[in-house]
């Protein structure tokens, strides 16, 4: 399946290569570089590139291209999904997935890649299995290892590998038993020029951090499970039970994991928590343009809108801006033409606004399109879809765990067309 993997940084250098079958010369990446050159943006590099003898499938994460070399038919998503899993694993191990981090831990990276694939077919991708095989590098462990000469490599087959619950280690012990669940919803929306919603959907996830001793069996029930009609689960969730009773029943993995993600589609009515009033005009022939933007909360169920960040890609003709924010700070990069305004919290009494003028290139014609405005925000303590967890119960263990649940709404791809 996967023949080789090359990691390419943003300046086009191959800084790591790994082969699972015969060695493939790194010159195969030339085809990739060609495609990279042709693409105007880094994101525009096509994920699948056919070459005379191989196929290159790449993903771009953290400004690193992970380029897998394939020789024969394989579902492309299989490779893409795996590459993303690799990135996730690196992130899990090193905290960040940057070129520097990978180079610093090149041996661990190599050991990981060796375990994750055998002959190009995934062997162990569950984080808890990998962590038993290869312990993540920590400063303490590095020091201990240098002194004692012990290793980071496990000698026994991880229990998870053979178990029917491969996601959980046996013999987990904690002094404080706790289980936290974060319900995070992201709202994707496109708002029309006139302020009407063109499309809005909610993408929600329940991320969990479970630190419980032994083999706990958890059930999580919802007040309104009917909202969740389009869900994907962590393998630990018992699907039949969900089908029958709409209850999440599972033996959790140890540590952080994503329990489920769900999707509330555009067919349902989605309340948009903020509104934007805008007036952006360019006049023909004039070298000045007007820019006015006001933000306000709407249908937030009494919760404050925080961490608001507005950004917009202004047309190429804009030379500079002269704007006044009523709150927060704004920056404009004259090279990339990126305007960003860090608003902070929206005060419903005194709505934040950004007003002023833009200076345009003299003689340049009026841009066809007004810029789209991207908005980011957060609303604590509320899930926009109205999803509510009813209760969390634990079976199978005797102790009483500490349980916590948190709700949050965030803007996902929230765009306002002007």
């Amino acid at each position, binding site marked *: 399946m996967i023949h080789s993997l090359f990691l390419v940084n943003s300046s086009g250098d*191959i800084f790591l290569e790994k082969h699972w079958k*015969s*060695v493939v010369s790194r010159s195969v990446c030339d085809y990739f570089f060609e495609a990279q050159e042709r693409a*105007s*943006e880094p994101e*525009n590099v*096509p*994920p*699948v590139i*056919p070459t005379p003898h191989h*196929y290159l499938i*790449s*993903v771009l994460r953290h400004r690193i291209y992970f380029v897998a070399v394939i*020789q024969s*038919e394989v*579902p*492309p*998503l*299989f490779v*893409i999904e*795996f590459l*993303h899993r690799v990135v996730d694993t690196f992130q899990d191990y090193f905290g960040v997935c940057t070129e520097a981090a990978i*180079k*610093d831990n090149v*041996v*661990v*990276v*190599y*050991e990981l890649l*060796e375990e994750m694939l055998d*002959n190009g*077919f995934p062997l162990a*991708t569950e984080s808890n299995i990998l962590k038993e095989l290869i312990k993540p590098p920590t400063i303490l462990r*590095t020091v201990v*290892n*240098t002194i004692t000469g012990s290793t980071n*490599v496990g000698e*026994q*087959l991880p229990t998870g*590998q*053979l*178990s029917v619950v*491969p996601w959980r280690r046996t013999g987990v012990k904690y002094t404080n038993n706790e289980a936290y669940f974060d319900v995070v919803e992201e709202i994707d929306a496109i708002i029309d020029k006139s302020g009407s919603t063109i*499309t809005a959907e909610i993408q929600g996830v329940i991320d969990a951090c479970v630190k419980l001793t032994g*083999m706990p*069996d958890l059930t999580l029930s919802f007040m309104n499970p009917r909202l969740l009609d389009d869900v*994907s689960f962590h393998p630990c969730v*018992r*699907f*039949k039970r969900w*089908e*029958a009773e709409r209850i999440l029943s599972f*033996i959790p993995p140890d540590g952080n994991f994503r329990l489920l993600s769900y999707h509330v*589609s*555009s067919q349902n009515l989605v309340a948009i928590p903020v509104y934007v009033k805008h007036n952006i005009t360019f006049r023909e022939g004039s070298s000045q343009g007007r820019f006015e933007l006001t933000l306000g909360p709407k249908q937030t169920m009494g919760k404050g809108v925080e961490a608001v960040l507005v950004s917009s*890609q202004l047309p190429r003709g804009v030379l500079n801006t002269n704007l006044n924010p009523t709150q927060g700070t704004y920056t404009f990069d004259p090279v990339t033409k990126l305007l960003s305004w860090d608003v902070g919290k929206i005060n419903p009494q005194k709505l934040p606004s950004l007003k002023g003028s833009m200076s345009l290139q003299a003689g340049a014609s009026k841009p*066809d399109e007004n810029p789209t405005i991207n908005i980011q925000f957060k609303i604590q303590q509320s899930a926009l879809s109205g999803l509510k967890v009813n209760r969390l119960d634990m079976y199978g263990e*005797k102790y009483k765990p500490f349980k916590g649940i948190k709700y949050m709404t965030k803007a996902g*791809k929230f*765009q306002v067309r002007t």
Partner: protein
Amino acid sequence: MSTNNLSYNDQGGSDSAVEVGQETTPTSSSNAGAGFGLFSTNFKKNDDLKEMLESNKDSLKLDAMKRIIALIAKGKNASELFPAVVKNVASKNIELKKLVYVYLVRYAEEQQDLALLSISTFQRALKDPNQLIRASALRVLSSIRVPIIVPIMMLAIKEAASDMSPYVRKTSAHAIQKLYSLDPDQKEHLIEVIDKLLKDKSTLVAGSVVMAFEEVCPDRIDLIHKNYRKLCNLLVDVEEWGQVVIISMLTRYARTQFTSPWREVSGGGNSETAFYESDEKKTENEDEKKSYMMDPDHRLLLRNTKPLLQSRNTAVVVSVAQLYWHLAPKHEVGVITKSLVRLLRSHREVQYIVLQNIATMSIQRKGMFEPYMKSFYVRSTDATHIKSLKLEILTSLANEANISTILREFQTYVKSQDKEFAAGTIQAIGRCATNISEVTDTCLQGLVLLLSNRDETVVAESVVVIKKLLQTQPTQHSDIIKHMAKLFDNIAVPMARASILWLMGEYCERVPQIAPDVLRKVAKSFTSEEDIVKLQTVNLAAKLYLTNSKQTKLLTQYILNLGKYDQNYDIRDRTRFIRQLIVPNEKSGALGKYARRILLAPKPAPVLESTYKDRDRYQLGTLSHTINTKASGYLELSDWPAVAPDQSVRNVEVIEPVRIHLYLYCPFPLTIQALHQGSVCVCQCLYHKVSCYFVSVCNASQDCIHNRARFVCLCRVCLCVCVLESSSEVESDEEKSSSQSSEESDKSSSQSEKSSSESDSEQKKKTTKKPPQKKTVKPTAKDRLHGFVPKKCLSRSLCFSLYTHPCPLSCAALLQVSGPAFVPEKSHDLLHRMTGKGLSAQYQFPRQPCLYQPSMVSVQISLTNTSDRPLEQIHIGDRSPTGLNMHCFNTIECLLPEASVTVSLGIDFNDSTQAANFQLCTKEDQFSVSIQPAVGELFLPITMTEQDFRQEQGKRLGMNESSATITMAAANTTSQPISRQVATVANLGVVPSGQDNIHRFAGKTASTGAVVLVTVELRGESTALITINTEKSVMGPMLLRDLKRALAQA
């Protein structure tokens, strides 16, 4: 610059010393990444690595290896260190060893001779008791691409394929592919191994072996038949990567084995899909029922894959989607829509692939995605290829009802700053306009407006699209043509210019004034035009010459002259051709007469089609589909067979599906779904609603007297284990007679029970179809409910390896271990409650082959807390003799007052009656206890024929024989009591005997496997001769003594 070993550890220093010579990025390294660039410049430096590798300190070697790995990672050549590295292959340090493995795999191909030095190490490691070491040895051995070792690899694979550990078996499945790519001649042998592994019941192996199957022998579909149902049933529990592979294999399989669920009329065209959209579902179902019955196996596949649409792995979701697309009846395909749309929130690359698949689907089945149209709206932040795919899908989804919404959306896109995208939108508008006649005019007007756009690409694209649109209805639009003629001066894009020229030529009769003028203009700039424009100019000139030769004769000649001397031979060629065709001269042949008809023939309007139109010839979700060419190794999806091949090939001999509800002492009741002979099988835990693993230690089909059956069940969730025993008679005849179909219906009904919400029409049909069988099955199931009583429940956290493999059961090839003939209820005191401070323990011998190790004897201990406080952390402490090989139970965290728990132990008594002493510990106390086995408990019963028995007996005469004559109690003179008495004393199996007066029993010792043969020969009324033949000269007399006592006494 000879850095010695010590200075290397001082990394900062050595780094800065060499950094001068580094070419690329400097490394800020910790222990691992040190010295990236160290050796790239200076080759002598490798000497120092060699030195380190040859030192006798592991830490130095490890450092050296880490630096070498860093070199490999950078793509630097480190092959010259091969001899130094390969020496360390047998290192004790596991990390060092692993790094050496990495190195070896990388360079073995280049250094074949030296690589052979390491082989013996791997061969040794293949026998290691640690499964991880066995597996990794096999991994490396098979990854070394050295042709000489092919036979060794073959042997290793064969051996590993029957390993105890499923992990090792999985590795062997991977090795199959490696060996195949190294030496394709081994194919036949490898297929044998694949066939064997396909029968494996471990979920761990399933994915890997199917992968090997796909790579080595994808055409050997016959290997799948018997395993088809098993694979379908295991699918949910297979790891996600395996799921993808299995699903795609099963898709191909199903296409060859089942008949089409699509209607007979389905020519595969669009007309029929339209029919489906408009038609009501109900009538459709009824129609289908009449003509088509779905194979239950086909249904099984569809049903078992459906839950996987909820997988977090996008590859799994798409592979299920393609399975439904290619296999499901048309009205069921809809279930995949939602899941596919959900994936659109995933990473960019995932979006790309998913959108491509949706694009292909949406052309054939608009209805599926239409409700989700808004999910395909383009955002300004999308990557260009995503944008164009979304556009593609939106265009396919357009119909009369939603076209206005879509066009409004397109209007925004046209203004986009991304001009490539804007151009794409214009083409999309063109497609909408041709497909939906209602909007053609609106679109055309919109496009004409775009002609005044400032951006050239937009204008050019509009011209091209307008040209195509006008062709469909040229009559009404002469003003548009005029407008475009005016634009001609301003447009520089060649394609657009050529399009205008073509339009002028084609419709020159509608714009008689303007066309010659355009020709005049282009004649002036002819030499500087692009080729494509020149060709169209020649074309235009020719057409005008034919229609309006008065005005254009000279112009045409001028252009033809220019064309004659053009640099491009295409143009010269065309010019020559046109000249011959239109200019009358004496040489011009018959064609000249037809010039008008040739050039001005009415041309059919182009059909604007999606580029995804023809992609459905590839299986969805494949690489070939993505790149739209056949990738190497692509396996075609065959067409449905007209007549279904024999269905019975998939039948597996299953003893009988036992479905029993067991309300056990253990917290969660279990249902057993199907029972496979003597091995792991899947049952269902009623509480957790998941499948459990079921280990049958002994079962009714084997020749057990008393028809006793025992099972061990392991719930995969709570991991509770219970031993069940049937107390009443289970008629094995009845079991065999119940048909295969009853198994089917049974399975399906339990399935439907699981997914109660599923209101599947097929399902209903099926239940109504088979009422008779159903009824006959039910009472049996009920009977069995009484038949089985829970015997004992073991600790809930028995080790995972319990369900691994039936291997422990087959110890010696000849001597098949059978179930115990009788299990004494008698339990012995291990720890009295007074001495145990409230903890009391009793033990008994369940007479099962031990699951942990075949050489152990299993012992069940029931622990009871008679005190009034909970006892915590009950476990086993020190044991004596110290070498005592014993498998302890897992620590019991807490035992409440009055509660009791049964745990199982494995003790290797080493074939002696010496007591096993150990300490039973609680959190506070330790109690020394001992288990002394009766000699009879050290055996395992075996089955053999009388002939074999005699043969074996013949080998064990003289020293190995002990015998005694006894007077028997009156009750013991018939065969049944004798058997029972013997079986009570010793765990032996009954050997069928031809004579009434001779009874034979056979067994073997648990630890060494020495055969023990017992013969009881009745002589006269009450005397009997007992003979025991065994090599174990100590155990023989001891057993004899016990037997004497038992037979004489009662």
